[in-house]
């Protein structure tokens, strides 16, 4: 947004200068950097400088047993770790031809959607902070903590649960857990109205975010944008519905879209998605008590488990976009090759570099946060 009396100034080309934006910068998400070339305060060129969080996951995974990798994969995307676990498990199950019991599938959906709400709350917090509004940040993080408490009760870990494994889930839901989930959802549902007043319809935010980092539908498809960022351009594509996994076909939910494709639309899509996730979890809470059966299909001795040779590809919809695992086995105790397709690698590198050009310096932070990229997953 420009002040009303703004007048463009023509700078001579010699006024171009370079600015390092990050890695230790309050306007950047995590440990990530941008090199921007500025003319006045207009960005004329932007280059991402990634690699600060590189750990070499794909190589590390070749060195560990199939089951040990479960502990490694959630570290790839820290704010939203559950889809990583589930997706890896799905790929390995496909390879080993394991049928997952129905109850385990429902519990996985419960986790996935809880994780989506938590990640979105965290996203609002971060995004609000880039526009100078710190109250939504405090609220978002505090409400997300309620969900982390639920995770802790279910899995034992606040962030990294290591609860899914090829074949199913580790334990059953504790007694009274579903009631507590339901109570928390009621609370969050009630809070959404306050969030609307404070943040989503607040003119301070709306005026700042409208028109920032606009992508149109064709560009989004060309740049392999996925997830909420794609839906913000008006394309109704969601892996949960278009390439269903687990028990999503049995659930009733809508896929919210927005048309504008800018930072505001991306935020609103996520706001609407939270409502849908709450709807899904309510259905799970209703159905889960009647679904009996085992929690996992036993796998042979996990320390010497040889997964049959072959390759498989599994994808799930995470809160950031489409996550996919391509797993190759040569019949050994360890994966032969694992490739991870993460959404943030596209959003934070190729999309961001193009969106930043022409925008003003203070809008860069907002563009990064509205794309909801997660740097550990860019670098892996």
């Amino acid at each position, binding site marked *: 947004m420009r002040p009303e009396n703004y007048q463009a100034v023509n700078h001579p080309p010699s006024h171009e200068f370079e600015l390092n934006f990050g*890695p*230790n*910068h*309050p306007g950047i998400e*995590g*440990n990530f950097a941008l090199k921007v070339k500025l003319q006045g305060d207009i960005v004329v060129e932007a280059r991402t400088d990634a*690699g*600060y*969080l*590189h*750990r*070499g996951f794909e*190589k*590390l995974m070749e*060195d560990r047993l199939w089951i040990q990798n479960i*502990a*490694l994969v959630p*570290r790839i995307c*820290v*704010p939203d770790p559950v889809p990583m676990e589930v997706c890896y498990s799905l790929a390995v199950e496909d390879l080993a031809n394991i049928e997952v019991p129905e109850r385990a599938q429902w519990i996985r959906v419960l986790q996935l959607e809880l994780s989506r709400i938590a990640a979105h709350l*965290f996203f609002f*917090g971060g995004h609000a902070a880039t526009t100078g509004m710190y109250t939504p*940040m*405090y*609220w978002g*993080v*505090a409400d*997300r*903590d309620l969900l*982390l408490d639920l995770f802790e009760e279910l899995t034992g870990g*606040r*962030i*990294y649960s290591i609860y899914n494994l090829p074949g199913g889930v580790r334990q059953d839901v504790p007694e009274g857990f579903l009631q507590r989930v339901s109570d928390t959802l009621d609370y969050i549902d009630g809070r959404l109205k306050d969030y609307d007043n404070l943040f989503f319809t607040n003119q301070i935010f709306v005026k700042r975010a409208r028109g920032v980092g606009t992508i149109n539908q064709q560009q989004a498809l060309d740049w392999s944008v996925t997830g909420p960022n794609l839906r913000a351009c008006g394309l109704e594509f969601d892996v949960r519905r278009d390439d269903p996994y687990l028990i999503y076909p049995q659930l009733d939910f809508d896929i919210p879209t927005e048309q504008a494709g800018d930072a505001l639309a991306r935020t609103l899509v996520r706001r609407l998605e939270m409502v849908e996730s709450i709807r899904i979890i309510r259905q799970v809470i209703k159905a889960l008590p009647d679904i009996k059966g085992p929690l996992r299909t036993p796998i042979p001795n996990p320390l010497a488990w040889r997964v049959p040779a072959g390759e498989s590809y599994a994808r799930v919809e995470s809160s950031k976009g489409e996550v996919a695992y391509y797993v190759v086995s040569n019949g050994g105790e360890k994966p032969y090759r694992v490739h991870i397709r993460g959404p943030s690698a596209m959003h934070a590198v190729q999309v961001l570099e193009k969106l930043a050009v022409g925008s003003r310096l203070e809008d860069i932070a907002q563009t990064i946060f509205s794309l909801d990229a997660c740097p*550990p997953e860019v*670098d892996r």
Partner: protein
Amino acid sequence: MKKSDLDKVKIKQIPAQKRTNPFANVFDEFVGFCRSRSMFMLHYCTGCGAIELPPAMTSRFDMERLGIQPMVSPRQADILLITGYVSIKTLKRVILTYEQMAAPKYVIGICSCTVNGGMYWQSYATAKKLDEYFPVDLYIAGCMPRPEAVIEGLQQLMQKIKANEANSWKQYYKNYDYFLGNQQHLFGNNWQTPTDVIGEAETYQLAGPNTLGEHTKILQSVQTPLKPLEMKL
């Protein structure tokens, strides 16, 4: 020096020094008390542990009641929080940041990855032990430590500062040769930072027998002295 020789070096803790003048001691205690109650924390999100800091900083656990606030510039920060694994590319920036901070400065290593490499023990891209590259006051172990643990760790650091025991920044000057050796081992012999650590050590009168050594000799031979930038309008 080979890496195996560097591994044998033992860094001793610097105890709190009592001065002979009782009034000076009271003054020291007062200064320690004040320092421990108002700290700015530069948190450089180096790894996944950073995700537990927002809960620790905001309403639920509220770090601010301890007098600790986030700060964006290293020049004004007192605490450097290393939140998780440091890849080699990050470590260079962390060292630059650490050297820019004004003394007294305190370093906290959060997460098991800073202690011994954690679950990336065999990764080719991460530095394993943080205190080989610069001194660390306190570790908070866990993968990842809960916000309660972070708060507890910060309280311990406050106790240490109050007792004038958090002196790790002096070790950096006293054993600069050792730390520089490890840095050179990782980044190559051309490694240099803009900060003149040896000069600072002499100014603070903290230069000891281990400040200079064979690694600082390498540094001095490759160092290009920094010239003041030309002012142009």
